[in-house]
């Protein structure tokens, strides 16, 4: 595995191993173990840097190779800059957190696992050369930062902040994914380096602009650009070390990284640089303005981050005005702006990390972050003050700190823009906004340092407030030192770190940092800076006087409010929409189905065209048949008008019997037999169960509902008829059934073709059919036997209604006649049922019908003699009988395995049997016997279950 992958996987593996590792050393703060992660990373990247000869390092590991999606990593100058930031600041943050988080009170294991995940994800983003992989890590940063922000998950504010960050950045991420995919389609590759190579060809693609827009959405949301900045202030709910990390080296920097990374690809595209610059400047001024009014230390820092990120974004935008090889006279301005952006990015990482850490120290020591309750801490914690002063001054752009240098470069680029804009108003705006924002920046930097440490002490907690432990102090100290060093000796990092990064953005850029120095004469930039200090100082001094004014300026719409309203509106709208069509009622559901059916069919028919109804070639109609159809239709139409349950059941039953009649008319004896029995059983069942129900209430349904039902029903019926006629008129092919008629006897040994189809040609259907029936019977049994709510009391009330009548009101009538007759016809029916079973292969009948006949004989006996007598006479469990039946059918099928034949293969031959005579003996009959037993068992199970439930 290449070192690059090892480095990338390291934090993930460490995160996964952390729970086990920390269990090995239970008394050790898990942070010490976690610290190994960033330190190793730092060492690794430094080693790669010294080993490398400046050329980008590439390595690939397969993930989904057949999709061309692999873990393609590429370490160039830009990636190296970020990688070092991530691991370097990561190490400091981990160190800091070891002293910030109490091992005994906090879930430090989870904290470091998430932090390492975050680190790894961020590393992945900057190392990926494949857009899809980049997207993956991008989302992972969202997820891991979500987990970190919600670290104190009992607090509602943490949860809100975490969710907000996840939503905003997740949304951007998805947009970005779409953009990447469009880019991939346009450029036929998803590798960044390859896409950059074909940038010119890409420029012609119509997909480029939408792709770019979508990617910009990703950039802006991630780097908290206006108006997507709203998640960042709420993210301060995270533990302070996380904030420090998130604001200085990770998460928000991912957006900047992506913008920088894609600069070579999109440079020169107006949408790209235009929106980056405009949004960046807007964010810059908005953030700095808002930072002033914050009273929470961390909130102030959060808005300052927003503002600083806007600055860098704007610089990247200005840095991508001119594509590589542009002939413009101002082409050099581009590289200069990019260089400024990179420098400020580095500066910001240093001072913002330090600031957050000091804010954390203050919070840790005083127990509050409220600027109104803070002050005068300089006496108790001078070192901390020194650190925060240095960082604040760097943020304010005061020499000799690093911030001064990048601020100067920024003003330079702003002025360059003005120059390149050749006097246009928009171009004038750039330096104007830059200057205004810088003044505000000066003010809030001052507020941070002065309000916290200067002035009189507000809280009387002196006894508790003191300089923190070295562990808390060291990391910000290092960062403050770095901020100072960046100003005093930029050459330490510029050629080795910044210039290669710049080359990733502008491959042909000249050495941009060579002349970097604190003093290079009186330049317009310097004058602007001086004016910033003057005005800013004034504002800071006068702050108490104009601060109330600030408070009265209420923005007409707050972005957070809009976010809240959007979410609430989304919820409310969804609720309304869902409630509008979902009422959980069966009627609605059914109505939708048939409405859809009718509508779909009608629209489909209208769209399809070319449909005709041909009436010729249809079978002739005799008088009786005509009357029968009309009677059927009349009976059908009468059903809805039935006033009582019984009437409705009887009418429906009548329709069923008329269907039997049609089966007879159309030469389907087996069907008629089956339908006859089934209909009788159903009607009997219906009547028995619903006889005692209260009278059917007149449907209390509005006429409109009824009308709607009628319309839907009519349309559905009409549609079915029309489709039938259309299909009948448009027969494309003849049926395959000639085969069955020709071969039923020769190949399958049966003359009843329907039966042969059922038990042989399509025996599989029948097998599953009895399974269905079996399941139904077991389900019915279970339903009846299970205890249901509401029934329990009835059981307790002693006698049931029928018993009551039996005992108190009625002497039992004499059953002698029925019993005598039953004894006689029992044999008749049983014989007939077996005849139906065995003759079914050649005559109408078969297992199903035979079984129903047997069952009816048993039912007759149960009626005449009572269930108990039947149980005594036939002591079998009918559920077992049906199980045996299914088994028999299955075994008949499986038997063919033994002969290497396909499942359900049947054999038949002619045999002279002692009892049954000359028979075409087909194993299909065995199968039918299985059907028979199953159906007997099932029917009796159902009947006994229902019968006994009474």
């Amino acid at each position: 595995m290449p070192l690059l992958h090892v480095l990338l996987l390291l934090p993930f593996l460490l995160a996964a191993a952390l729970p086990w590792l920390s269990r090995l050393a239970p008394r050790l703060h898990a942070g010490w173990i976690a610290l190994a992660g960033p330190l190793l990373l730092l060492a690794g990247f430094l080693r790669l840097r010294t080993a490398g000869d400046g050329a980008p390092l590439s390595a690939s590991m397969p993930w989904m190779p057949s999709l061309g999606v692999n873990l393609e990593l590429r370490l160039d100058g830009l990636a190296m800059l970020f990688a070092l930031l991530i691991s370097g600041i990561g190490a400091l943050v981990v160190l800091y957190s070891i002293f910030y988080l109490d091992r005994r009170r906090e879930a430090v294991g989870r904290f470091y696992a998430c932090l390492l995940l975050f680190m790894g994800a961020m590393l992945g983003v900057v190392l990926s050369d494949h857009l899809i992989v980049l997207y993956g890590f991008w989302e992972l940063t969202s997820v891991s930062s979500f987990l970190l922000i919600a670290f104190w998950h009992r607090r509602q504010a943490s949860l809100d902040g975490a969710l907000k960050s996840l939503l905003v950045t997740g949304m951007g991420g998805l947009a970005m994914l779409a953009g990447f995919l469009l880019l991939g389609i346009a450029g036929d590759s998803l590798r960044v380096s390859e896409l950059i190579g074909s940038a010119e060809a890409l420029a012609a693609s119509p997909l480029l602009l939408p792709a770019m827009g979508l990617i910009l959405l990703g950039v802006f949301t991630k780097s908290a650009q206006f108006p997507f900045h709203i998640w960042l202030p709420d993210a301060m709910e995270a533990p302070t070390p996380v904030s420090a990390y998130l604001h200085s080296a990770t998460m928000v920097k991912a957006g900047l990284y992506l913008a920088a990374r894609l600069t070579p690809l999109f440079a020169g595209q107006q949408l790209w640089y235009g929106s980056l610059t405009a949004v960046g400047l807007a964010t810059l001024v908005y953030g700095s303005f808002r930072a002033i009014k914050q009273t929470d230390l961390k909130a102030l820092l959060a808005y300052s981050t927003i503002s600083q990120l806007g600055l860098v974004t704007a610089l990247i935008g200005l840095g991508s005005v001119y594509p590589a090889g542009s002939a413009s006279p101002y082409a050099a301005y581009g590289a200069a702006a990019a260089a400024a952006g990179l420098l400020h990015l580095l500066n910001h990482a240093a001072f913002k990390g330090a600031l957050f850490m000091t804010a954390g120290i203050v919070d840790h020591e005083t127990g509050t972050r409220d600027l109104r309750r803070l002050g005068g801490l300089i006496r108790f914690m001078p070192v901390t003050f020194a650190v925060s002063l240095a960082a604040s001054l760097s943020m304010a752009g005061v020499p000799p700190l690093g911030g001064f240098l990048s601020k100067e470069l920024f003003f330079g680029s702003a002025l360059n823009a003005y120059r390149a804009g050749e006097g246009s108003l928009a171009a004038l705006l750039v330096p104007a906004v830059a200057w205004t924002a810088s003044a505000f920046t000066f003010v809030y930097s001052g507020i941070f340092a002065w309000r916290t440490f200067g002035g009189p002490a507000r809280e009387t907690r002196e006894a508790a407030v003191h300089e923190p432990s070295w562990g808390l102090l060291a990391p910000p100290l290092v960062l403050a030192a770095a901020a100072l060093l960046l100003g005093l000796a930029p050459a330490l990092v510029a050629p080795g770190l910044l210039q290669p990064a710049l080359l990733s953005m502008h491959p042909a850029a000249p050495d941009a940092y060579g002349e970097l120095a604190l003093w290079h004469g009186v330049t317009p930039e310097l004058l602007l800076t001086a004016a910033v200090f003057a005005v800013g100082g004034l504002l800071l001094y006068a702050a108490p006087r104009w601060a109330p004014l600030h408070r009265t300026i209420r923005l007409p719409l707050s972005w957070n409010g809009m976010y809240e309203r959007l979410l609430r509106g989304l919820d409310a709208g969804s609720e309304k929409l869902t409630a509008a069509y979902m009422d959980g009622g069966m009627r609605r559901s059914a109505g939708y189905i048939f409405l859809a059916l009718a509508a779909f069919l009608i629209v489909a028919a209208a769209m399809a065209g070319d449909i005709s109804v041909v009436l010729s070639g249809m079978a002739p109609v005799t008088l009786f048949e005509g009357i029968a159809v009309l009677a059927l239709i009349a009976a059908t139409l009468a059903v809805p008008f039935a006033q009582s349950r019984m009437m409705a059941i009887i009418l429906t039953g009548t329709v069923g019997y008329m269907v039997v009649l049609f089966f007879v008319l159309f030469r389907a004896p087996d069907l008629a037999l089956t339908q006859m029995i089934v209909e009788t059983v159903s009607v009997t069942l219906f009547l028995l169960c619903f006889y005692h129900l209260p009278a059917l209430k007149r449907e209390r349904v509005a006429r409109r509902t009824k009308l709607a039902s009628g319309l839907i029903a009519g349309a559905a019926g009409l549609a079915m008829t029309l489709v039938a006629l259309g299909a009948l008129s448009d027969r494309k092919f003849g049926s395959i059934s000639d085969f069955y008629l020709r071969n039923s006897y020769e190949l399958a040994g049966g003359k009843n073709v329907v039966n042969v189809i059922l038990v042989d040609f399509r025996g599989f259907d029948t097998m599953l059919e009895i399974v269905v029936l079996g399941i139904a019977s077991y389900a019915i049994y279970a339903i009846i036997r299970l205890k249901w709510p509401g029934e329990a009391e009835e059981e307790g009330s002693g006698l049931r209604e029928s018993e009551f009548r039996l005992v108190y009101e009625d002497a039992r009538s004499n059953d002698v006649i029925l019993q005598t007759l039953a004894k006689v016809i029992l044999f008749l029916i049983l014989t007939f049922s077996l005849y139906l079973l065995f003759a079914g292969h050649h005559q109408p009948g078969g297992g199903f019908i035979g079984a129903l006949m047997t069952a009816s004989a048993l039912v007759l006996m149960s009626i005449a003699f009572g269930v108990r007598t039947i149980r005594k006479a036939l002591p079998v469990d009918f559920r077992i009988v049906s199980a045996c039946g299914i088994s028999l059918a299955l075994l008949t099928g499986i038997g063919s395995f033994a002969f290497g034949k396909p499942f359900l293969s049947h054999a038949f031959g002619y045999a002279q049997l002692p009892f049954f005579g000359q028979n075409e003996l087909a194993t299909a009959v065995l199968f039918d016997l299985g059907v028979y037993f199953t159906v007997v068992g099932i029917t009796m199970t159902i009947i006994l279950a229902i019968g006994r439930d009474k």
Partner: protein
Amino acid sequence: MVDLLLQASLVLLMLSIAGCMYRLLKGPSVSDRIAALDTIGILLLSMIAVFGMLQGTTVYFDIILVIGIVSFIGTTAFARYIERGAVMEDE
């Protein structure tokens, strides 16, 4: 001629069924309906015999028997049910 006579029989039987339907729907007592239903069963059985004659086939004779059996058991069950409130008693 034969067909005509048989068709006529069918129409008559159909009319008889219609008559029974009247009683079936009108009631007033459940026993009335059961009686009507039983009669319909018998008429249906007769009709099917006539159908068989018309189509010149014996394949429907099974149905005749089945209807006979089924309609008897149905009637018995109903009568038992309205009389005792249960079809099959556990005793």
